[in-house]
């Protein structure tokens, strides 16, 4: 057994890459590939560690056609990685095909000054498990409103997929768009007029928001 830190699952291998003094290599796992580093222990969470991992994932994304970034802290042994990937190989392969040649753009829509997001109904903030699950359902299925809806409509024909997340506090909505690399310039031109003090656009990123849920 060998201890691995996993950065991403990819459709194919790429040459090993270096980042600072770290060596990232690609290993085959159940028919797909994983970009890993052989390490002795899990990294401590810190801004530096997060930024370093983000930079590494960006480098990996630049060297493969399809990537599923892995969340921070994926410290596993090789047998465990093989078991997890083997058990969810179908959704992993489907998603790799879906994100191939595509990038994620992130759009954050904030409330205009002085108008915080509506508060939860009195008495429901702490809530029961059912209330929590209902909120999760609403977050997952919420339909954007206002400026977020206008943006969603404007780029509708340019995105392969869209995920939406209702925000908290001043953050009203986050829209995640999966965009073909070939139409990225057109997407950027279309969305540029919306950028303002209450609309922030970032990317392109690897498709962090379009990965499969391996635990359901």
């Amino acid at each position, binding site marked *: 057994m060998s201890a691995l830190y*996993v950065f991403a*699952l990819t459709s194919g291998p790429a040459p090993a890459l270096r980042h600072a003094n770290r060596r990232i290599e690609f290993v085959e796992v159940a028919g797909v590939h994983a970009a890993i580093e052989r390490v002795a222990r899990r990294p401590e969470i810190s*801004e530096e560690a*997060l*930024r370093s*991992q*983000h930079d590494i*994932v*960006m*480098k990996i*994304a*630049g*060297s493969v*056609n399809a990537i*599923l*970034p*892995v*969340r*921070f*802290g*994926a*410290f*596993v042994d090789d047998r*465990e*990685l093989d*078991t*997890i990937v083997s*058990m969810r190989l179908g959704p992993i392969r489907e998603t790799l095909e879906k994100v191939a040649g595509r*990038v994620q753009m*992130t759009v*954050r829509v904030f409330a205009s000054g002085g108008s915080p997001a509506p508060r939860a109904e009195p008495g429901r903030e702490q809530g029961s498990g059912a209330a929590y699950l209902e909120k999760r359902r609403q977050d997952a299925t919420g339909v954007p409103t206002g400026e977020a809806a206008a943006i969603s409509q404007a780029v509708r024909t340019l995105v392969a997929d869209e995920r939406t997340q209702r925000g908290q506090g001043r953050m009203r909505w*986050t829209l995640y768009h999966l965009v073909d*690399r070939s139409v*990225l310039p057109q997407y950027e031109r279309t969305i540029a007029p919306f950028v303002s003090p209450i609309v922030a656009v*970032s*990317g*392109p*990123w*690897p498709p*962090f*928001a379009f*990965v*499969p*849920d*391996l*635990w359901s």
Partner: protein
Amino acid sequence: VTHIFDQSDASLVDVIDNLLNRGVVLNADVVLALANVDLVYLRLSALLCAADRVLPRGR
């Protein structure tokens, strides 16, 4: 392809959202706690692996 990602400048919000809220969850460690005392430590990946061995084929 590389140059597409070279253009991106990640804010801390992007880094945190991408790496802590998004991305494939390969392992998930859960501590069940009561009154601030850790009771049970579950490694979900280990649990999943164990379930795979216990459940009959085809389920």
